[in-house]
């Protein structure tokens, strides 16, 4: 069977994990791939863990990515990336928003937030590119652009040209919020550049 690409996107309810994966799916669909997308969300709107599995290729059967078979892990939050690190295949790549979202359960003192999730993942031997998507989005004037920043970061790690993903992002805004097309284009390129710069680090 032809190779299926497995992308696992993780984060927290409300961060736009599902929307980002949906846009990725639209890009893959536009190229004629068979595509399946599945979420484990539960009551995620209430600040819980969200993972979205995207699989595409010539033919996709099960929608779920097996442990140790994700080609790309996209973490919208640092500790969540660490939680799902074991889903990566050997040689898989992680793209991580280093921004932190600390839940009440940590604030009330019942659990600790990991000291440095990004360093912990690197110590496991994971090829990882970290950047602060939240701050980048805020610098562009809207925290909601974080989603597009994350998509930009993925753009050069896909088995298709970055422009296909950019077009999927912009198409969505063209039809729903045309005024936001240009600022999303910029956010996309910011994410792309953040990872490209990062890649040159030792």
């Amino acid at each position: 069977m032809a190779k299926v690409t497995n992308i696992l996107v993780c984060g927290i309810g409300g961060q736009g994990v599902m929307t980002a994966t949906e846009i990725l799916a639209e890009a893959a669909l536009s190229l004629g791939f068979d595509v399946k997308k599945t979420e484990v969300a539960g009551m995620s709107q209430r600040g819980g863990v969200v993972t979205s599995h995207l699989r595409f290729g010539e033919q996709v059967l099960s929608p779920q990515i097996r442990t140790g078979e994700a080609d790309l892990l996209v973490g919208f939050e640092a500790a969540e990336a660490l939680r799902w690190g074991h889903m990566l295949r050997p040689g898989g790549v992680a793209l991580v928003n280093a921004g932190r979202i600390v839940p009440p359960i940590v604030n009330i003192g019942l659990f600790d937030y990991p000291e440095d999730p990004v360093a912990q993942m690197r110590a496991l031997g994971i090829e990882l590119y970290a950047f602060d998507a939240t701050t980048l989005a805020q610098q562009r004037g809207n925290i909601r652009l974080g989603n597009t920043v994350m998509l930009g970061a993925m753009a050069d790690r896909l088995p298709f040209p970055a422009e296909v993903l950019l077009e999927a992002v912009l198409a969505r805004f063209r039809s729903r919020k045309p005024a936001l097309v240009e600022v999303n284009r910029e956010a996309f390129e910011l994410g792309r550049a953040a990872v490209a710069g990062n890649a040159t680090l030792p």
Partner: protein
Amino acid sequence: MSASQLVPAAARLFLSGNEAVARAVWEAGVRVAAAYPGTPSTEILEVLANYPDLYTEWSVNEKVSLEVALGASMVGARAFCAMKHVGLNVASDALMTMTVTGVEGGLVIAVADDVGMSSSQNEQDSRFWGRFAHLPVFEPADSQEAYAMTLAAFELSERHDTPVILRLTTRICHVKGVVSTGERSEVEQGGFTKDARRWVMVPGHAKPRVPLMFEREAAIRAEAETSPFNVSVDGTDRRVGFVTSGPAYMHVREAFPDAPVFKLGLAYPAPLEAVRRFAASVEALLVVEETEPLLENELKAAGIACHGKDVLPRWGELAPEVLLPGLARLRGEPVAEPEHLEPQQVFPRPPTLCSACPHLGVYYTLSQLRNIVISGDIGCYTLGAGHPWNALDSCISMGASMGVALGMDKGRGEADKNKKVLAVIGDSTFMHMGMQGLLDITWNRGNVTILLLDNRTVGMTGGQENPGSGRDIHGDEAPRIDFAKLCEALGVKKERIRVVDPYQLPVLFKALREETKIEEPSVIITDRPCVLIDRYEPTLPYLVKEDACTGCGNCIDVGCPAIHVTRRDKEVKASGKEVDLAFVRIDTSACTGCGLCVQPCAPEAIVHVKPLRPVQPLKFLRT
């Protein structure tokens, strides 16, 4: 969603199972569709409500929705209803007699099992209802099949005069895949035929119909033997052949690409002879079914040797990660794990109440009360059982908070005689199944205080309308129930019914203290909207004056996710006692200015530039 975003008739659409079912229901010419929201089925009716030329409604519960669908069928309309697995428990009374009457217009019931329990209180295998009620059951394996089987189900329903169950699971409802759709076909509708022997189910009328039900079942079983939905997929490795249905089919193909598979789509009544022929073509047969061994037992009873739950679990999803070790166990081989990193220990991140949620005030107050037992119910407020409140002591089923509270009151022994019994229930759950329980409390003179949390929406499933919201499924104005009057009509004394603003902690605290002291039924209604619906009006966020925060941590006890600890410390009191300090900040992008955290703040360190609502400090709660 606007009409322009409706799914078109086209090839290669990217649809969830729920969207695909909705599209097919519309294409089938359905005139009436009803549901009560329930994960993972909710989106079916949400999507359908946007289509033209059919009536859709949110019903008050699943039983009513099924009865609405049946009524429409009686007058010759094609009808549909959708529910989550536990919803069919509620609707089952109607179901078990509908199977005797049969249908006029085609009637399909979509029931969505939460296999893996992502958002439910239990795991059930709804395929049992097919056996119990002698109804055909379709089990799609992906979105395209969900679409195709929905269309086929209406056709089968009319051809065999039977309601049809479309059994979905979370991994169908919420998985998106590529689907090709068609156009709506208008179905010619006859009128209602007065026929008491058909529709009036009294013993004399039901008795002659029961044998017809069994004849129908036998006819559908014969049809299942050659149904295009029951197919054999060839494979080169004939050591083990698989019999499977639903999403498990995809998992089997993924895990064992070379194995022969018999796939059931019209899964009940099972095509036993077709399976017998398949079994003869393989060395061993493994039944892969989510979740219980229904088919396995049926095959064994028919003398078809097979494996199933001897090597596979009886609960949860049968994903490749579960199937591979299962087959290894069957063959007595070691389990080969794919190479992967060890999972890292990370704090749990359970779902929690939203920033500024009106329930925060309720649970903060309840967490400050002692000597109480709180019987809870199903909705966002079930989260009150979690940290930091720990203020909910039971959660069973829709509306159970009422009966359970009454039972606790009547059954309590010496050890509990001084405890106050409370019940917490939301607006939608109260109307779904709670009202009868309250009537039972008042009639039987129970000593229970009820907290009716009216946030004017079905919150947990994403904010659907209900009879208390004053809007219908389309968001159009609709009659709005008055909860205070309703409770009074159900027998609660007028003076024992209070409507309270849950953001005013002292008022809430006082109401609770007073009502729990009085030994008769009382109701406290909170009346602030869910923060996720358009009726909620956010105000200016608060912030913490860094130099004024003393690290007392009182605000953290409110449980709002917008409050974050910036640093921790310890302080030795004059008494020599060491206390933990936690200094905080407020995430201003999440804070909507509800003012709950301001009230327990000892040093009055939480401020915004200009107070918008007078906030009364909660001094009397401090010790």
